[in-house]
């Protein structure tokens, strides 16, 4: 089997690419090589048995190859575990998907990805929203005194409050996303937001910015932290553009 690490253009810097590959090793110490056609290439290494690479250290080795290459070349990372049977199959894959690969490489060229996670104190936020929900919920009073305090009414009231609380939480998360968008509007950045990953991780963002904008991005996130002291902003990166691969490669055989 042949393991594929990344797809990249090979028209420029061919010598630099070959030099870089000769200095790196793939999983299990295998040599890295490039399979190319029509100025598009796949970085690959042989693997004796796919079962032999199914542990975390192999994932780290795999990621390290991609990251080292991404420091010098524009590339599209391939998801871990993508293997094909022969170089011919890889060539066919590159031919069939040439346009999509070229387009996607153009979108990420000269850019790096960052991850931005926003955490909150889930219990504190829940309590605040609960209070707000209790204040804002307008459950109509029913005249007639204690007789109307049925379990059904209490149940409906509780349900309304939970629903209102959920609405407030979504509104709150959206308002934080708006702040992030405003903060990043100075960049020509692409952003992908994911809400409510866990109770405390309220926002997960992937940000694609130009390499030279890295320092300014860090400052912007630090400013956001100042603006929102009740939240915790965690910035990770730079990463190769894993989250900005926007197509699925199709092929017949593996």
């Amino acid at each position, binding site marked *: 089997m042949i393991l594929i690490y990344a797809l990249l253009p090979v028209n420029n810097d061919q010598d630099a690419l070959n030099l870089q590959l000769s200095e790196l090793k793939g999983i299990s110490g295998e040599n890295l090589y490039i399979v190319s056609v029509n100025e598009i290439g796949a970085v690959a290494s042989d693997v004796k048995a796919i079962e032999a690479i199914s542990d975390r250290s192999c994932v780290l080795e795999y990621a390290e190859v991609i990251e080292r290459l991404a420091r010098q070349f524009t590339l599209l990372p391939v*998801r871990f*575990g993508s293997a094909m049977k022969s170089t011919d199959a890889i060539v066919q894959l590159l031919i069939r998907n040439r346009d999509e690969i070229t387009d996607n490489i153009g979108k990420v060229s000269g850019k790096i990805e960052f991850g931005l996670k926003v955490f909150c104190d889930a219990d504190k936020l829940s309590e605040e929203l609960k209070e707000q929900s209790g204040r804002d919920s307008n459950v109509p009073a029913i005249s007639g005194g204690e007789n109307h305090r049925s379990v059904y009414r209490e149940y409906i009231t509780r349900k309304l409050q939970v629903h209102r609380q959920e609405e407030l939480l979504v509104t709150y998360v959206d308002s934080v996303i708006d702040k992030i968008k405003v903060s990043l509007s100075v960049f020509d950045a692409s952003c992908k937001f994911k809400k409510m990953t866990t109770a405390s991780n309220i926002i997960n963002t992937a940000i694609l910015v130009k390499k030279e904008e890295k320092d300014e991005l860090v400052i912007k996130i630090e400013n956001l932290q100042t603006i929102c002291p009740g939240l915790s902003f965690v910035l990770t990166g730079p990463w190769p553009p894993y989250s900005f691969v926007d197509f699925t490669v199709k092929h017949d055989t593996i």
Partner: protein
Amino acid sequence: MRDDDVFDRSRDITILELLDRVLNKGVILTGDVVISVADVDLVYLGINLMLSSVETMEQLKSGKTITGT
């Protein structure tokens, strides 16, 4: 909070972010071989700002603690 706590948390975040990307994102070859990876940490705890690097991954592989910036 002890310094050790910060180091451990930064390591957790980095490894989680890395694994999330390598295992769940990137070019998908339809029909590719699915590999399950054992011993994956699922811990979300963090310091305010941390940058990863190749050096970070080398430290992770060797089991050393890492520092956030």
